[in-house]
């Protein structure tokens, strides 16, 4: 039980209870879950002591999905129902995905996010990811022996808002409280930096199964500050498999759509892995006539095939350096992350580019999950010996559509998050009560070259003469890199209502429906599940309130303390019952009752920050 129930007025010792939290690396080819044990980050393995879970899900009729190694075993015989590399489809439409025709799936023609027809019905990438996350979540709960406070889930630094939101939605469907979406290279920097006590400017070169990121960070006195990030969300180890596959199928005259082809792909992967430590490898497959076909491949041939892909990673590296305003000579170290960085051709290219040998002390497969676990432990509220601060950035500029199909940038890429920007608009017709605008992400001038995030409809503007209203729209990017929008009319003070139409993502109705389907599949009672969810939320709120009261109850007047304590007691009673609506209602009451208290606590923090600075300044 993670919650220590204290008698009203009795303070609890927050550091006594270790709040359970995990870091999850939701990867293109593999996923991992890690936690902190005895102050050290460690990967949680499965019952066969395997750390990696293949990010593969097989869907069969009238059955729960098969995830991981078992699904991988079905990859060849049941290719069209076995979803691999689903991360490439997150927050994407069919037209976005260049390699869709190379996959065995039956895509449903559809404007929004990709949908795939399987034997178990239509699934979307969010559901597939949720099925992977559920396995990792269950593994962690089983290993740790209790409910989780939440998880940090890593995403490629270069993921846009739609891809981030899709990841967060997947976690919600899997029943995981997301403490933070953390950028993969930043997670690696945390694991590396804390482990090695590194100081200086570091480049994290992260080539995963399907995504490439480069982040430049400054590590100094417990601060991890991302200076710039760049990448390619559709470039990874998978693409190296593909170039060998294409070469081999040409050499062996194999039809890429035939049965031998899927057998060939796993042969190709093995050959690629062998070439990491050996100068040559052999590819063997059974032809249609039963004859054994054998083709040798040398590391030199592979390097030649890969040269264009290796080059493609260096363009984002140059951009990131330029955005950070740095020369190669100013980089103190280069950290390699992602299984694909084991390839000698990558190591050589990185060493040559940065004019130094890259650092490989940590397992490139695990370092992201370990960093995420370290951060999850802190975010869950557990005290650590060291105290550090992560300052991350938004990877792509955020803007709105203006006249002529152009994008006006409001928040430039590589701005430190959280960040907000306000823009004023006015009406162009008398009595106009609504207006709409279009939010985009990207670097190009034409909106057609940028990614559409959402269209917003503002309603409830008080009728005025044309040009008289002043509507201030505020775009907020939170610490997860997620965008939200709010608006109010400045003259009347009326808050305009915003209706969001996500261009690729899922709306709240979709998520509710998927949640219900997912519970139906697990044959769990929706009401019971809902009760459990509200109980978990309520316990979290009670715990947060306990922390606040134990630290700062002197900030409350006697009456306020009574009101708050009463609200706490009422909620404690409510969670013992089974009425989720009551729990929700009482939780809201407690939330409202503690709003002023929260404000005063924050004021104290800020005061102490300001006082601390004044002393520093005086001491100088």
């Amino acid at each position: 039980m993670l919650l220590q129930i204290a008698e009203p007025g009795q303070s609890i010792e927050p550091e006594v209870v270790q709040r359970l939290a995990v870091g999850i690396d939701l990867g293109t080819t593999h996923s991992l879950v890690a936690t902190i044990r005895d102050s050290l980050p460690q990967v949680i393995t499965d019952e066969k002591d395997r750390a990696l879970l293949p990010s593969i899900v097989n869907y069969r009729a009238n059955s729960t999905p098969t995830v991981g190694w078992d699904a991988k075993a079905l990859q060849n015989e049941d290719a069209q129902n076995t979803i691999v590399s689903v991360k490439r489809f997150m927050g994407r439409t069919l037209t976005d995905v260049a390699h869709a025709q190379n996959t065995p799936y039956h895509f449903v023609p559809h404007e929004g996010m990709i949908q795939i027809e399987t034997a178990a019905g239509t699934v979307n990438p969010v559901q597939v990811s949720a099925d992977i996350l559920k396995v990792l979540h269950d593994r962690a709960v089983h290993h740790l022996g209790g409910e989780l406070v939440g998880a940090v889930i890593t995403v490629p630094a270069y993921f846009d808002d739609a891809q981030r939101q899709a990841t967060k939605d997947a976690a919600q469907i899997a029943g995981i409280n997301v403490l933070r979406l953390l950028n993969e290279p930043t997670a690696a920097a945390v694991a590396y930096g804390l482990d090695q006590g590194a100081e200086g400017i570091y480049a994290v070169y992260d080539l995963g199964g399907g995504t490439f990121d480069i982040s430049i960070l400054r590590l100094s006195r417990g601060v991890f500050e991302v200076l710039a990030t760049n990448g390619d969300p559709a470039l990874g180890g998978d693409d190296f498999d593909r170039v060998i596959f294409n070469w081999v199928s040409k050499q062996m005259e194999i039809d890429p759509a035939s049965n031998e082809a899927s057998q060939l792909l796993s042969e190709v992967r093995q050959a690629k892995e062998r070439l990491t430590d050996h100068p040559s490898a052999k590819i063997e497959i059974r032809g249609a006539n039963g004859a054994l076909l054998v083709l040798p491949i040398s590391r030199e041939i592979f390097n030649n095939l890969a040269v264009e892909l290796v080059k493609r990673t260096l363009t984002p590296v140059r951009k990131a350096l330029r955005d950070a305003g740095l020369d190669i000579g100013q980089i103190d170290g280069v950290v390699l992350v992602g299984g694909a960085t084991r390839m000698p051709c990558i190591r050589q290219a990185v060493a040559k580019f940065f004019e130094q040998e890259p650092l490989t002390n940590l397992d490139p497969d695990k370092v992201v999950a370990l960093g995420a676990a370290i951060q999850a432990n802190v975010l869950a509220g557990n005290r650590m010996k060291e105290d550090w601060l992560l300052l991350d950035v938004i990877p792509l500029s955020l803007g709105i559509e203006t006249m002529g199909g152009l994008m006006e940038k409001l928040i430039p890429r590589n701005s430190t998050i959280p960040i907000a920007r306000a823009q004023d608009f006015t009406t162009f017709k008398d009595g106009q009560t609504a207006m709409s605008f279009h939010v985009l992400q990207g670097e190009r001038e034409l909106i057609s070259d940028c990614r559409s995030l959402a269209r917003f409809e503002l309603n409830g503007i008080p009728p005025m003469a044309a040009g008289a209203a002043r509507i201030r729209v505020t775009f907020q990017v939170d610490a997860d890199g997620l965008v939200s929008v709010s608006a109010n009319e400045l003259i009347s003070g009326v808050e305009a209502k915003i209706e969001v139409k996500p261009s690729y993502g899922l709306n709240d109705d979709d998520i509710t429906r998927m949640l219900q389907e997912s519970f139906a599949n697990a044959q769990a009672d929706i009401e019971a599940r809902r009760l459990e969810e509200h109980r978990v939320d309520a316990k979290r709120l009670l715990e947060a309130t306990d922390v606040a009261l134990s630290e700062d109850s002197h900030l409350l007047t006697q009456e306020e303390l009574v009101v708050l304590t009463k609200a706490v007691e009422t909620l404690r009673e409510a969670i013992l019952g089974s009425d989720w609506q009551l729990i929700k209602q009482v939780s809201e009451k407690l939330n409202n009752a503690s709003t002023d208290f929260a404000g005063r606590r924050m004021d104290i923090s800020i005061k102490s920050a300001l006082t601390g600075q004044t002393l520093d300044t005086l001491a100088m």
Partner: protein
Amino acid sequence: MNLPLNKNPDYFEIFALVPKFHIDMGSLDTNFRDFQRQVHPDKTAHLSDAERRLSMQWATLANEAYQTLKKPIDRASYLLRINGIETHSEGHVVGLSEDFLMEQMEWREALQETIDNVDIEELDKLERRVKTKLTGQLDRLGNLLDSEQSFDAAADLVKQTRFLDRLLAEINNAYELLEN
């Protein structure tokens, strides 16, 4: 017992700096980090909705303040704003001298030429010239704001530096173009 905390502190106040153009960048960095250590959303992830919301708002303000004070042109523009003079961020040519505008046109033509001729060396030269000019202007801006307190003259100069800054951004884009 509400604290008498100013809900809209000015950016210099947040980082305990004297509102001047010439500031100690080391103090700005240190005080920014100390401030974020108190308010950053990572510190409140386990707390209530209200505390998380406030934390995001303060961290947002601190980031905005830091970015503004870190960049000399934005810092100058902000100093003018707290002294009641708005300098708009985009392309206001009103009040700029003819000589300055002529020079701008020449430089833009030169930039286009380097792109057309794929001439990185010329681009380097152009970048150096623009940077030298900008450095000189920022020095003058510092004097106008800190010593002479001539805010109107400073506002004109801020407009000019914005032009140069934008030109440097375009030069940056040209590098990207030429290198690919």
